[in-house]
C-alpha cells in the first residue's frame, strides 16, 4: 500500500535525526520509528537523498546528536527541525580531527 510507505525512519523514539528512505524534496514529509507506532511529520527545508538524514528537532551548535539512542555526533552549527544533516553541520564527537 503505497500511502503507508514512510518517507523517513528513525531508530528510536527520542532520536534527533531520522533517515530518508527515498529521495525527498522540500515540503511536508512523514515517517515513523522502528521502536514503536508513533509517526512524525516534518516540514523539510532541503533536498535529502535516500539514506541521508533529516533533523527531527532543533539542535544547537555543540550539542550531542542522538541516533540509535546514543550520541553519534556533535552539531558543528545550529540545526533546525527539517534541516538536512550531514558532514556540513555535524562532526564526530570521538575523532576530533575528523572534520569536513
Amino acid at each position, binding site marked *: 500500500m503505497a500511502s*503507508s*510507505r*514512510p518517507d523517513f*525512519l528513525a*531508530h528510536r523514539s527520542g532520536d534527533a535525526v531520522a*533517515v*530518508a*528512505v*527515498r529521495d525527498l524534496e522540500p515540503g511536508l514529509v512523514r515517517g515513523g520509528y*522502528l521502536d514503536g507506532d508513533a509517526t512524525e511529520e516534518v516540514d523539510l527545508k532541503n533536498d535529502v*537523498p*535516500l*539514506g*541521508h*538524514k533529516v533533523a527531527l528537532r532543533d539542535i544547537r551548535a555543540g550539542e550531542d546528536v542522538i*541516533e*540509535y539512542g*546514543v*550520541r*553519534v*555526533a556533535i552539531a558543528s552549527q545550529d540545526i533546525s527541525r527539517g534541516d538536512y*544533516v*550531514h*558532514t556540513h553541520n*555535524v*562532526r*564526530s*564527537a*570521538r*575523532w576530533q*580531527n*575528523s*572534520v*569536513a
Partner: protein
Amino acid sequence: MAEQRRLTGYRRPDGSVGVRNHVAILPVDDLSNAAAEGIAALVPGTLALPHAFGRLQFGDDLDLTFRTLIGVGANPNVAAVIVIGIEPNWTDVVADGIASTGKPVERIAIEGRGDLRVIEHAARYAKQFLQDASEIAREPVERGDIVLSMKDGESDTTTGLGSCRVTAHLVDEWVASGGTMIFGETSELTGGEHLIAERCVDDEVRKRFQGFYDDYVEMIEQTGANLLGSQPTQGNIAGGLSTIEEKAMGNIVKTGSAPIVGALAPAEAPTKPGLYFMDTSSAAAECVTLMTAGRGVVNLFPTGQGNVIGNPVQPVVKISANPKTTSAMADHIDVDCSDVLSQESTVEQAGQALIEIVERTINGRITAAEALNHREFTLTKLYRSA
C-alpha cells in the same frame, strides 16, 4: 522457529565442517606466487592463493602472517594443501601448522630447484589431491557444526536500518541453534564499544576485548590524521553516514543480541560455539581473510553502496536494503531486503529469506561473488618488514 532445512557439508579429519572442497596451492611468500599459479594452471580445479607478503617479516607481524596462512590452509573449506615457499624453514612452519589438522599437505621449497622443477613435483601431488578430494562426499551436518562470519562494507544508513537488522535476525537464530559466529571491525565500534563490552560473558573476555579495542584505536588516533573519507569511507559518506560513531552503530546492530563468549586475536579460531569478536581492520578483504583464517566457512556481508568483495576460500553472501544498489548492482547482491526499508516486509520475513540463502550456500549454492570470480586474499600487515 521454522523446521530446519537439511544441511550438508564436508567433515574434515579434525571434526570441523566445510561447505566447499578446495585443493589450495598456498605460497608462503610473494616470491612463490608464480610457481603456485603455475601449478594451478597445470591442474585446473585447484586454487592458487597468491598474496603480497611473507618476506623479512618479524615479531608479531610475522606471527600474524603465519597464523593467517596456517588458518586459511586449515579452514574446513579446504580439503588438501600444497605449500610452496622460497626457502624450506618457513615453508615447514606453515605446512606443519596445516598438517596438524590431519588433512593432506605437501610442501616444497624453491631454492636449489627453481620454479619449473617445483611445479613439476607439486603438480603431481595437486593432481592426486584433487582426485582424492573429488571422492569426499557431503554428509548431513548441523548448524552447530558451522562457523559463520560477518562483515559489512560500503555501509550507509540503509545497512543500520535494514540489512544489518536482517543479519542480526540470522545471528541470534544461529547462535541459539548452537552455531558459531564471528564479527570484527575493531575501529568500527567507536562510539558503541561500551555496548560490546557490556555483552561480554565475563571479565576475562571483556578485558581482552577492551585491550584489543584500546590498542587499535590508540594506533589510529596517534597519527592525528583527519579520518573523514578513510573511516568513514568516501562511499559511506556518499551514502549518508556522517561520523565513525554513526557507522559503528550499524556495525553493532548486525551482531544481534547474543552474549559475546570470546574475544579473538586476528586470525585466531573459536574454540566452542557462540558469538565471538575478532580484532580486525574494517577493510573488507583484510577482514574477511582474517575471518577465513579463523575458520569461518560462510561470510555474511551487508552492504549499502555495493561492496563487491569475495574471498577464494570463504563464500561471501551479499545482503542489501538500499533499493538503488539492489537495482543498479543486482549482479552482486544475493539477498535483496529493500522491502524492509519501505516497510513492505518485516525484519523477521527478510531474516528467514537470508537464512534460506545462507543454508543453500552451505549446501553448495554458488554466491554472486564466487560466480563473478572475486577472490580477494589480503594479508593484514602490522608494520614494515625489516
